[in-house]
């Protein structure tokens, strides 16, 4: 398995697609920074004009914490879409180039090969989110400095600077679990569909449907609480004024179980299917 993982790392590092994905995420970050730098103060002043007359806010509200929160919001659609495209390519490219057939003609077990793909997808996702978090921290704090965080989730919530930083760190961790779920799902879709373009369409559809179902009332309480579309925004709960840490922990644990379920299904199907 270690040899398979080493091969996967080499392939990932040698593919230009990997760097395009990282560059795309960096571009999203930079666009957020540029917009915030030139227009952020004006928008915040408009939103909080009345509140500023009654409350005192420490430092400027357009600060590193707010920028990090805005970057975190790219976990809704932009980042998972890029991740799903790249990670599904780990499988679809092997079908397209005929390398899957070549691999299966070697002394390699099918289940080990596909399991290595899942592990690599998780590893790549974690690395991308870690890089995203690190680069945002460095840039946001060095350009915009620290300060209290104001976010709007049903109502305006305010967090002291230190508390905000703490919550953002946990939100990145919880967001990573959601992103891992999308990556694992995209590998499973790739095993089913095989073709790159069709898998991208299916991945985008999966993402859209998941986001739509997130807000929909599914009628049955257990579905409303634990069906996977209801769990992908768990990181947002870290910005509720009253934080329910137990619910956040349980939601992430259930989402990890979904990841394992998707991976087990994909591995079983891949092992069963003919190659060619």
């Amino acid at each position: 398995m270690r040899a398979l993982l080493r091969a996967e790392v080499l392939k990932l590092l040698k593919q230009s697609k990997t760097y395009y994905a990282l560059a795309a995420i960096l571009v999203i970050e930079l666009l957020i920074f540029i917009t915030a730098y030139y227009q952020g103060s004006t928008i915040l002043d408009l939103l909080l004009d009345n509140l500023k007359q009654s409350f005192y806010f420490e430092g400027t509200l357009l600060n590193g914490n707010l920028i990090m929160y805005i970057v975190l919001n790219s976990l809704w659609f932009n980042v998972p879409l890029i991740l799903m495209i790249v990670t599904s390519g780990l499988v679809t490219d092997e079908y397209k180039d005929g390398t899957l057939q070549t691999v299966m003609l070697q002394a390699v077990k099918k289940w080990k090969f596909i399991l290595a793909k899942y592990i690599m997808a998780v590893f790549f996702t974690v690395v991308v989110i870690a890089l995203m978090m690190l680069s945002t921290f460095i840039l946001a704090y060095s350009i915009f400095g620290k300060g209290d965080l104001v976010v709007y989730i049903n109502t305006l919530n305010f967090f002291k600077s230190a508390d905000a930083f703490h919550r953002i760190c946990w939100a990145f961790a919880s967001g990573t679990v959601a992103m891992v779920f999308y990556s694992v799902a995209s590998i499973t879709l790739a095993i089913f569909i095989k073709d790159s373009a069709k898998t991208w369409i299916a991945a985008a559809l999966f993402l859209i449907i998941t986001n739509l179902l997130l807000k929909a009332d599914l009628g049955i309480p257990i579905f409303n609480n634990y069906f996977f579309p209801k769990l992908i925004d768990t990181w947002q709960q870290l910005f509720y004024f009253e934080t329910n840490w137990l619910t956040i922990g349980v939601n992430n644990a259930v989402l990890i179980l979904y990841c394992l379920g998707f991976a087990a299904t994909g591995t079983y199907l891949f092992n069963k299917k003919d190659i060619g």
Partner: protein
Amino acid sequence: MLTGNNLSKTYASGKALDDVTIRIAPGQICGLLGRNGAGKSTLFKILCGLIKPDTGQVIINSQRPKPIGGIIERPGLYNYLNAYDNIRIFAGIQGAPADAESINQILVKVGLPLNRKDPVRNFSLGMKQRLGIAIALLNNPECLVLDEPFSGLDPIGVTSLVNLIVSLAANENIAILLSSHLMSEISKCCHYLYVIDQGRIVNSGVTNQLISRHIHTFSITGNHLSTSKTLQGYEVKYGINDAKVICHAQDIPALLQNLLSEGIEVTACTPELTLEELIKTPAV
């Protein structure tokens, strides 16, 4: 020894293989001739374990970690990597030696240059075929299957690949099965031939015997063939540079002698055998 017994496979589009039995001994090169869509690739995939047959079984008498290696349809390579890295990856994932010396050794074995460091997407088709064979040979398989290895190669590439295949069978005692729809290429290097059509083996035999049994046309090239009196006694189709004579193989020596007596300088006499003839007239 590679054996496929009574193999059958049906897809939604129809029957791809129908009760096919095939045997290849160590050191033997077997050819599988058939039109496109005759069932060659399906048979190869079944022999390599990529797809499961509906009925029948594949037997490979081998204790090696990789009993069979091969290329099916085209060499599947990581085009963004160079030849060295391709071999490193495929050797590494199956625990075969992946050090520089071993990799260079296998590159030399298949006749690939050691100084090419660019991605294999820049390689010619012939070089890709060689790299595909190098990967297939990793971990010393006892059998090698090559699906359409000559497809798209120029004559020099074909000759060079034929030499490589012959030397692998002779020097390493590997059982080799290769397919083609091109008669001339496959007859150059195979000890034994199977002819497949519509998923069934319709003809088989030792290459020389099978070919001589079915040859009825000879292409003769020489001067003033159209005025030859000798040729008037045969069924002949005159081409721009040759005359296609329909006769039995045993009549050829006398025919050539007579042409020489007439003063016609014969420069070549080539037997012509088409795949259709092998399909239409099964061995007795």
